[in-house]
């Protein structure tokens, strides 16, 4: 266990704004068309296997995995492929996307059958076929995480239900509305990995989720629901691993290197769903909220649905939106237009009114130290700023800017509105350049 007095990781208290926590997810009316990108994960793009004019049904493979770190993509509505064309995603990546026009039937693909899963190897294979990626936000292909050569290495299994971002309640609803799936999923993976203990980490601002899951595992000595203080970024992978198992993931290493397999709770529920029904990842539970949204909701949305259709289903905008986000306000990505599609790892879409969207003016750093004292990774942003301004790769390495997970606690707490996260993103590029140049020598 981490030492509470001296070893506790710091963070910030963000507003919770879990307005939708008590709203069970409803199914959205199927949209008239979708745009499904072939990159919704970290790694190589999937390769499209359909062309304009092809008829597709829900769950049908439309793009196959493009490598070991990649994931296949499936049709989320039934209808006709209109075109396969490159689009630019909000992260700036350009990749082909499959445009499908709905026939209004949402007809499931007839080839859907539950996979046979009786071992970890079969589970990994099934997850690979399901197209499931890290649904907590990172989008790392889940099958890669479970491709473990020696299962004795997996000492702990950590399930991430922290959901520390403001507004987002999709994990909360998964835990409450799909408790059975979560329970069976946990038991299945615990059965295959046989860890010393499994921890389900949940921030204590979700007492109902904690209570519901605790009841399911009261008889299990090695499956522990852990109530965690709501300290952002509690759901950060390294933070949660430390706060549940006490282990520190060294830089450049994976959780498995310190004996931990970690997975988001919604990812887990989707894996179990796939194993039981055979339906790949074609639909996402998404929290729709923000000051510009008329009727905030938790929605099941077909992947590829345009944000325009999602917001329309939520009654449209009550005020002119100034900013749209994929994900929460701490780590979410700003989306430039309403035609952007819902992705596999989209857990929320938020729309803020003009006033909430204003970018606050930057003033000089007064060295208040808030960023230093609230960084969960114990980095020193002012020192990083100095090194970055001098384009000093050696110092950036010394300051370990590469360890920054861009959680935004520093920028959130900064009284001078310094663009710290943005600077760290750029500093990482300077660091990489320096490291490459060092290799050349």
């Amino acid at each position, binding site marked *: 266990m981490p030492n509470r007095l001296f070893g506790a990781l710091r963070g910030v208290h963000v507003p919770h704004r879990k307005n939708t926590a008590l709203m069970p997810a409803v199914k959205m009316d199927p949209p008239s068309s979708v745009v499904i990108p072939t990159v919704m994960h970290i790694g190589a793009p999937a390769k499209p296997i359909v062309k304009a004019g092809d008829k597709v049904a829900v769950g049908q493979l439309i793009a196959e995995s493009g490598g070991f770190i990649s994931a296949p993509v499936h049709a989320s509505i039934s209808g006709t492929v209109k075109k396969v064309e490159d689009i630019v995603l909000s992260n700036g990546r350009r990749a082909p996307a499959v445009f499908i026009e709905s026939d209004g039937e949402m007809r499931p693909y007839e080839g859907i059958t539950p996979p046979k899963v009786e071992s970890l190897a079969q589970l990994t294979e099934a997850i690979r076929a399901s197209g499931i990626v890290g649904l907590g936000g990172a989008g790392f292909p889940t099958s890669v995480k479970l491709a473990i050569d020696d299962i004795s290495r997996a000492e702990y299994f950590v399930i991430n239900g922290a959901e520390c971002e403001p507004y987002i309640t999709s994990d909360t609803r998964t835990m409450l509305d799909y408790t059975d799936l979560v329970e069976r999923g946990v038991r299945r993976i615990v059965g295959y990995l046989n860890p010393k203990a499994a921890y389900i980490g949940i921030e204590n601002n979700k007492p109902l989720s904690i209570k519901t899951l605790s009841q399911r595992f009261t008889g299990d000595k090695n499956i522990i629901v852990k109530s965690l203080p709501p300290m952002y970024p509690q759901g950060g992978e390294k933070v949660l691993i430390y706060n549940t198992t006490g282990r520190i993931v*060294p830089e450049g290493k994976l959780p498995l290197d310190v004996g931990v397999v970690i997975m988001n709770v919604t990812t887990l529920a989707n894996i179990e769903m796939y194993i039981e029904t055979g339906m790949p990842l074609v639909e996402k539970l998404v929290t729709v909220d923000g000051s510009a949204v008329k009727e905030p909701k938790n929605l099941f949305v077909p992947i590829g649905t345009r944000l325009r259709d999602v917001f329309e289903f939520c009654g449209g905008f009550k005020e002119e939106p100034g*900013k749209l986000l994929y994900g929460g306000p701490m*780590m979410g990505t700003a989306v430039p237009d309403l035609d952007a599609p819902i992705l596999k790892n989209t857990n929320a879409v938020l729309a803020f009114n003009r006033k909430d969207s204003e970018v606050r003016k930057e003033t000089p750093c007064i060295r208040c130290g808030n960023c230093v004292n609230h960084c969960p990774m114990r980095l020193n942003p002012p020192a990083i700023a100095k090194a970055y301004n001098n384009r000093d790769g050696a110092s950036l390495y010394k300051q370990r800017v590469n360890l920054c997970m861009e959680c935004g606690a520093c920028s959130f707490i900064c009284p001078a509105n310094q*663009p710290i996260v*943005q600077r760290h993103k750029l500093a990482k590029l300077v660091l990489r350049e320096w490291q490459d140049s060092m290799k050349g020598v």
Partner: protein
Amino acid sequence: MESDNKFIVSVSPHITSGRSTRGIMLDVIIALVPALIAGTVIFGLRSLLVVGVCIASCLAGEALFNLIVKRKQTIGDLSAVVTGLILGLNLPAAINIYPAVIGSLFAIVVIKCLFGGLGKNFANPAAAARVFMLIAFSNAMSVTAEIKPVVDAVASPTPLAVMKGGVGTLPSLIDMVLGLRGGAIGETCAIALVLGFAYLLVRRVITWHTPVVYVGAVFLLSWLIYGSFETALYQILAGGLLIGAIFMATDYVTTPTTDLGKVVFGLGCAVLTVIIRRFGAYPEGVSFSILLMNILTNYIEKATRRKPLGEVKA
């Protein structure tokens, strides 16, 4: 292409805590109000004039500097007000206006603006100006009388001067706590200063580390050197220790950011203060100590760096 591309795109995070530099400065000003009121009650209305002149000079100095070098106006961040306020509270109520104006301009223009403005100066402007004035206007800085004080105590020399072997009698400990003794406007009333400290802690503007370590270490070291519990108490209540420890040694810009660094900084200030008070030519050593430690801030910061989580040494 740019059809409905009307949404703001910026890097996360998209919300902030709402804290601002101006808000922090305002908190510091509020925290100093009790000391200003106490000083005015103890030393008379002229206290307000002195402090007012310092604030006005600081604001004017910064505004003019910005105008001359064609920089954006910065007086709205209130940091010049804080500097003027702290410097004013560090001056005797009976001081002439001219030295007060010159000291204020020195603090703002020479110590702050010339180094690049807020956040760039290496020395605390108020502490540096006080030291500058002690040397440049030593007579003006020690005037005590002329003004009819509300309380008689003022006419007496400062307790530190008395303890250093000067003439006069020491005020009682009660008077020391209340601030009924000779000294600068804002430094004498311990109750008012501690009230300000509590406010800053509650508002999370500063942490306890520097003030508690600084004052605590001065107390223990004095007890050790003088061998008297009572003298140690006098030492922490006398001179500018409390106002220095609470308001000057906690200045963000010129002190370390890490908790451990703050402890080291406070400890260093305490050692220097006790040495100067005991062995130096001046009876008072707080401003000198803070100034000397300011120089070390960068090194303390480096030496107390926290190990990043999961750092692997290459």
